[in-house]
């Protein structure tokens, strides 16, 4: 079996936590800072961080066009927090010029669960996995989604239940940060799908 080579987009954000978790699972991990490094990965993780910063660095590094193409071709991808924002079709409360790859048919509201001070941790019930810890930091909220999106977990933080883990084809989006916990089940789910 050929070793799986998973990239972690390493422009900004909690890159090292994703790298550590994927390495512990046993896949070959590469930090992606250039278009060249993106070419031979079999899957990609877009980490949490600031979506505006990552978007800008995707442009200056020249990664954006290749990543758009590869996502269009079905490159498996897991976006957590800011990564979900970058994969969404519509961004609410973003910058006026904020763009995204529109890989997953969800509309997300930036900081939809509140500012930093409203950050929280809770257990999330994931279809087929059971309970996993969810760390929400200035997390994006999925406010609407199309029928082609599979909702794998919902959470109600007081204003109605909304999806917090979704999948559409090869693309996975997560409002919270599984990489900031000791629980690697969501990463395993993604790696097993490759």
């Amino acid at each position, binding site marked *: 079996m050929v070793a799986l080579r998973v990239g972690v987009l390493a*422009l900004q954000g909690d890159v090292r936590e994703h790298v550590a978790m994927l390495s512990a699972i046993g896949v070959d991990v590469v930090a992606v*800072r250039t278009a060249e490094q993106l070419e031979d990965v079999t899957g990609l993780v877009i980490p949490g961080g600031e979506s505006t910063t990552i978007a800008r660095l995707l442009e200056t590094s020249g990664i954006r066009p290749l990543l758009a193409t590869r996502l269009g071709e079905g490159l498996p991808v897991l976006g957590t927090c800011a990564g979900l924002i970058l994969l969404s079709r519509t961004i609410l409360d*973003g910058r006026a010029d904020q763009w995204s790859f529109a890989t997953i048919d969800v509309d997300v509201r930036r900081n939809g669960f509140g500012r930093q001070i409203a950050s929280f941790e809770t257990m999330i019930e994931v279809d087929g996995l059971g309970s996993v810890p969810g760390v929400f930091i200035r997390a994006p909220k999925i406010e609407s989604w199309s029928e082609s999106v599979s909702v794998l977990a919902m959470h109600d933080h007081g204003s109605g239940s909304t999806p917090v883990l979704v999948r559409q084809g090869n693309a996975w989006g997560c409002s919270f940060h599984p990489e900031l916990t000791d629980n690697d089940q969501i990463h395993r789910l993604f790696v097993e799908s490759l």
Partner: protein
Amino acid sequence: MDVVNPEQAKIAEDAGAVAVMALERVPSDIRRDGGVARMSDPQMIQEIQATVTIPVMAKARIGHFAEAQILQALDVDYIDESEVLTPADEDNHIDKWGFTVPFVCGATNLGEALRRIGEGACLIRSKGEAGTGNVVEAVRHLRTINAQMRRLVTADEAEIYRLAKDLQAPLPLVLEVAQTGALPVPMFCAGGISTPADASLVMQLGAQSVFVGSGIFKSEDPQRMARAIVEATTHYQDASVVAKVSTGLGAAMRGSEMATLDQRLAERGW
């Protein structure tokens, strides 16, 4: 990036800053003007919060827990208990466990960093010497923290207690660093960073991100300088990228030699 108004905050966000620090004067102006430097006017902080989508930080004076309470009530994203402002308490820092908003604090060495973490700081930044445009103190502080962490990692079990005493740091945190070789919270670098090369230098010395205070808006072309420092921070391991963004950048802020300073801000806090 330090910003003093919504226009600067927008420039910082456009450039790719991950957060802005809202304050009335950048450190080099505080240094020039003298007098007592205090928390910023909430109106200014709120205007900046309304302008950008990225986190907004604000500074409270060392030990001034009432300023910190106000900043928390304003929903700022992080509080910097900062030596750049005039200290309000010469014995005690703020008990940061009493707050839900995360705090960042400065440190010049490992003991100071661990004392701040013991008080509840969630982020540590090397202090450097703010407002000087001179990276020498930031380098000293980063190197000191790194060297002291390496010493802990190599210490045998009996030596740890003595080292904890020398560091004047809480023993459980000293034991944790001895085991992991790293601070239990992220370590950023601040104080005197004014070029993309400075950012690359401190990232290579182990900083996980950089604070740029006066270095952006006291440079000749703040927009370009901001973008260049963002790129250099990401691609710090790739000298060709740092070279590219450093090219034709215009003048960096005018710097100061440490020997010419009347006041060392890094000596504030204990």
